[in-house]
């Protein structure tokens, strides 16, 4: 038995039955991290001692017969979630040596669920990027066709790299414009962006507060549902937290496809996607139809403007959220000749190029002369998109669409900032609307690289989103066992 090929659901069964121990499972992951970790660069900080201590506690609970819901499950935590006593960098030089004295709500919930922390996973600096290339610690890579050095996506690319390669059984991401779904899609994983407000943002380093959504990344939809069950829930420390929860006990229950109305977004028809993506998407639609689902066309008229609105709102909020990194209280400080000079030197040295670019954009769009034409206009587009989704969901139960235009690109692809931004085309609208969206593998492209498609639901319909995703997962039948992707 290859322990690192187990899904969370399988591992929990074996842990409960006593077939394996949490310590054995954890050691298997630590060994594999030792073997492949450097090559993949998926972790910024490893926490092996903590992992073994967590595992030992889990084993005690199993022995005592009172295990926690995810007891002994070894996970990777995106290095955006503050972990008490463990360096939390947001992949930025400015927080390179920052160790918080507090635990984020999400990571605390995983502690409470009995998981084992393997380490803090790599990401784009402050989650700004799509290839995890803006990380101060260098980019993680995809385990697929490793010699080609493909991107594991971004910004949660460290987690997708780790989970796809078997260096974590599952993990966390955050999705501001697609940062869970895009990397999950191109690494053959399930990435769930829950409804905004379902998972607390408290203790999660902020990028764009009105869009940032913590969520799970896993190899199966069931696993994603199990992780989400641990993460979700109201948090009085986050004013935007919703009084809502999500709970799946062992596995998702089946949703009947018969008569289920599934919407396909008309406006996305005009978007150029790879033939592979189109073929796989159409195949899965056919599968759904054959199973009795009713496919209808819905219109989200402004959805192609979502990207423009997103790239105004997100940088605007980011420019404000990142103002606190001024070198005064914590983090990097580069002394200058006076206060202003110290600010300038600290921030120039501490932030990478992409973060600086977005802060410049954000500062500009919030200036008094631009506010109305840029920020307010973007806010109006955002409202139109949210309203259009609401109207679409009066006609259908769920919506499906591609997760990306094509498969993973090489890390050294020479894309302009705008070309990178365009990769978010299929994902940003759901963040603007705050609605749940799950990327689920829909098959392998001709180049043997995985592709994903999204299931989108109305706010707080996260359960049905995952239930439909599970059907698509079964139709696609993608084998994403780590040992077969990059060996034992």
């Amino acid at each position, binding site marked *: 038995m290859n322990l690192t090929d187990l899904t969370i659901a399988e591992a929990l069964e074996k842990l409960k039955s006593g077939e394996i121990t949490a310590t054995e499972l954890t050691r298997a992951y630590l060994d594999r991290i030792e073997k492949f970790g450097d090559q993949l660069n998926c972790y910024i900080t490893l926490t092996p001692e903590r992992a073994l201590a967590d595992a030992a506690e889990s084993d005690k609970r199993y022995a005592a017969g009172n295990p926690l819901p995810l007891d002994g499950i070894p996970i990777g935590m995106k290095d955006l979630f*503050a972990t008490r006593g463990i360096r939390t960098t947001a992949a930025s030089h400015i927080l390179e040596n920052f160790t918080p004295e507090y635990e984020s709500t999400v990571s605390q919930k995983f502690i409470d669920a009995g998981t084992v922390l393997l380490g803090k996973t790599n990401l784009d600096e402050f989650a700004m990027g799509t290839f995890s290339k803006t990380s101060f610690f260098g980019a993680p890579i995809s385990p697929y066709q490793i010699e080609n050095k493909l991107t594991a996506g971004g910004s949660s690319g460290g987690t997708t790299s780790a989970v796809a390669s078997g260096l974590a059984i599952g993990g966390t991401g955050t999705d501001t414009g697609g940062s869970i779904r895009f990397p999950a899609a191109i690494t053959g994983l399930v990435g769930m962006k829950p409804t905004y407000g379902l998972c607390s943002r*408290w203790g999660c*380093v*902020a990028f764009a*507060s009105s869009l940032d959504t913590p969520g799970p990344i896993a190899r199966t939809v069931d696993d994603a549902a199990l992780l989400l069950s641990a993460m979700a829930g109201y948090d009085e420390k986050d*004013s935007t937290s919703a009084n809502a929860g999500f709970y799946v006990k062992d596995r998702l229950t089946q949703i009947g496809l018969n008569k289920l109305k599934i919407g396909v977004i008309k406006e996305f028809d005009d978007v150029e996607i790879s033939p592979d993506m189109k073929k796989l998407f159409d195949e899965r639609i056919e599968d759904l139809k054959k199973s009795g689902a009713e496919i209808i066309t819905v219109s989200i008229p402004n959805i192609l403007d979502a990207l423009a609105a997103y790239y105004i709102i997100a940088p605007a909020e980011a420019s404000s959220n990142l*103002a606190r990194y001024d070198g005064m*209280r914590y983090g990097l400080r580069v002394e200058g000749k006076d206060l202003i000079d110290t600010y300038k030197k600290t921030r120039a040295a501490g932030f990478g190029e992409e973060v600086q670019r977005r802060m410049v954009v954000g500062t500009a769009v919030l200036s008094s002369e631009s506010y109305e034409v840029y920020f307010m206009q973007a806010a109006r587009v955002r409202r139109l998109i949210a309203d259009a989704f609401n109207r679409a969901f009066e006609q259908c139960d769920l919506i499906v669409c591609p997760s990306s235009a094509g498969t993973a690109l090489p890390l050294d692809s020479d894309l302009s900032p705008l070309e990178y931004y365009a990769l978010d085309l299929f994902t940003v609208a759901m963040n603007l609307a705050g609605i749940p969206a799950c990327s689920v593998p829909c098959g392998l492209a001709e180049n043997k690289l995985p592709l994903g498609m999204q299931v989108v639901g109305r706010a707080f319909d996260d359960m049905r989103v995952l239930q439909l995703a599970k059907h698509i997962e079964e139709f696609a039948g993608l084998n994403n066992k780590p040992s077969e992707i990059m060996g034992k």
Partner: protein
Amino acid sequence: MYTIKGKTGDWELVIGLETHIEVTSNSKLFSGASADYNPSVPANTQASFVDAAMPGMLPVLNEYCVEQAIRMGLGLNAEISKRSKFARKQYFYPDLPQGYQISQPAEEPPIVGRGWVEITDDDGNPKKILIERAHLEQDAGKLKHDAHPTKSMADYNRTGVALLEIVTFLDTKNPENNSYITSPDEAEKYLRQIREIARSLGVSNANMEEGSMRADVNVSVRRVGAAEFGTRTETKNMVSFKFIKTAIEYEARRQIEIIENGGTVSQDTMHYNQDSGTTTVMRSKEDALDYRYFPDPDLLPLIIEDDLIERIRATLPELPSVRRARYMSELGLSEYDAARLTESVQISNWFESAVGDKLVRAKPIANWMISELFAHPENFVLDESIQRDESIRIIAPSDLAELVDMISENEINGKMAKDIFVKMLDGETGSPKQIADKFGLKQMSDTGAIVSAVDDVIAKNASQVEQYKSGKVGLIGFFVGQVMKATGGAANPEVVNKILKEKLG
């Protein structure tokens, strides 16, 4: 009307005030840290991770501060917004860890909308001063530049404490209402009114010396009778009534001089120099900061239900101004007495407790309090929570009520009452009645005894009697005095008077 004489004529002033009062609450506006930042508290011991703007920290609105703002809003006769928003005002400074202040800027509805307070204008007439808005915002930390030879230190204890900013309204559409401040004295009266309301509602200590009340002063000038308003300047962060008045006058004269010399006033931000009493330009209009306001995405819009407003309204104490009016109309007190007895809620409570349900006591009790009791603050208790010297005889409202009743019931006369009062001050325990008994202070109302004393005095003072009868009626006082003397001060002066008049014809 207040005017300033210039070289070319008389000028009138238009004054707007932005008053910041620190909201009394246990914890800060958006964090659970204690709001007590007084100088004795060691630096940075009351700063939470939220206050220090650590990564991933989020603000959570303190409901009590919202209730305080509503309370003040009701005290300002203002509309309470059912829906208001918080926005970020952004600038870099080391006393502002987040890099932005969470506030409710002019672009969004504030928690408290239009309202008014009443003051007396310079001619003694009542005048309404309109309020445009009052909104909640975070206070900044404090920088200490003298704690280290080369470095400045930041103390975040005050960071995030709730402020309520109250902004006056210049109704440019209806200027004839004259409902804005037009003189330095009016500015002071307005601020005192705000302070009185804030204190009586328990919303703020509103103490300028402590820094729990500060004001930004907007001043413009125009020729007397001019229809158009002039360009205003704003003088920031004023911390005393005196400075505010000097600054207004100085700034007005500076503007008049500019205009009279053919110049134009620029909409600048001014700094007030306390030592010289002058204003200088701190920031010109061209250098105005762009605060890049935008709605704070970490906070939802603030929705206030009618229920909450009504619940707060029901618990609102009577405002001093309302109380003053009632003391004058219902209790017949003079304006001066009413004002003295409404200086604080505690004084009013003491007074009303002494009066009880016998409204006739009101005037004598007011007199006793103002002319006697106030001179001995150590002898009465306004605040039960303050520790006091147990050895001091405390005069309770019931003591004064009893004393006043004894006079009105002719048990003692005024002089005896004064004696009893002094004995109480000197530490005599027991009620006024007991003290009167102990020292035999009892007014003689027995007519027989008084008649014989009167007869005796008339017999002994034949010449004065003759003078009185020939028309020198002023001598009645002499006779009363003699009778009082003869009775050892115990006779009831009224009875003496009456009998004397009968006997003398």
